[in-house]
């Protein structure tokens, strides 16, 4: 899951080397924390949150497959 978010985020931002992804695994639910450079924040969120929403949609499809839930948190 972590790799998925990392790959997508790195392809969207201007500073891919500053993309950090942390996965906090729970029993049922994993929380995936995404950190990017400040000026790239808008790029991973998108107009009216469209990019963030698209990432969350793909993430939940991928985690359904392994019968888990994953929550994406974009951190400043």
């Amino acid at each position, binding site marked *: 899951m972590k790799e998925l978010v990392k*790959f997508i985020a790195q392809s*969207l931002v201007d500073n891919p080397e500053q993309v950090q992804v942390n996965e906090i695994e729970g029993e049922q639910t994993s929380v995936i924390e995404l950190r990017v450079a400040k000026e790239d924040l808008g790029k991973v969120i998108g107009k*009216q949150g469209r*990019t963030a929403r*698209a990432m969350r*949609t*793909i993430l939940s499809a*991928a985690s*359904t*497959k392994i019968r888990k839930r994953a929550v994406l948190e974009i951190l400043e």
Partner: protein
Amino acid sequence: MEFLEFEGKTTEEAIANAGAHFQVPSEELEIEIVSVGSPGFFGLGGRKARIRAALPEEPEGDLLPLARGILEQILAKMHEPAAVTATQEEDRINLLIATPDAGLLIGKQGQTLDALQYLVTKMLAKQTRGKVRVAIDVEAYRARHNEALALLAQKYGDKVKRSGKPITLNPMNPYDRRIVHMALQGNKDLKTISRGEGLYKKVIISPAKKKESREDVAGPA
């Protein structure tokens, strides 16, 4: 290819201006010299050099494997065994996913498919200068969906014509709205407008105004 004109005291300066405008090294540009400048006399009577410059067109073959590669990597990271075929259609890249797990990749009302398409388009745009359109389909889901949507639009169109009352459809994304508009475009008795804010708007199908049809009849003979 779109050419733009640039001026400078010399052709070199004009080319440098073009490079600054397109934000690429000027040797990458396609350049035509319109006229060579002449220095004039003490800055008087000189003619400016004029050139025409444009960005070279992206070789289309390069984008296809790139787009396919991006999608394949996403699918691999989703642990989704799928084969992707890529084809080019005018300015659009079509990516077709063949998978035993179509339902998962399509998602509720095509949500997951839309999300994939949106992200791949953005990721590809980041790697290329030009604007590209990417269409992703799984097991001909979109083709079927579009056909069903056009039929639905026709059905509601007939209903509006019969009742003379407008009908508001459920909120739809831009692609779907476009299909509805296109399906009823040729129909003179109806008009369609989108109403609402943001990504998901509602399409309203209403009878074309009576006044307009009367004008048609009483037009210049």
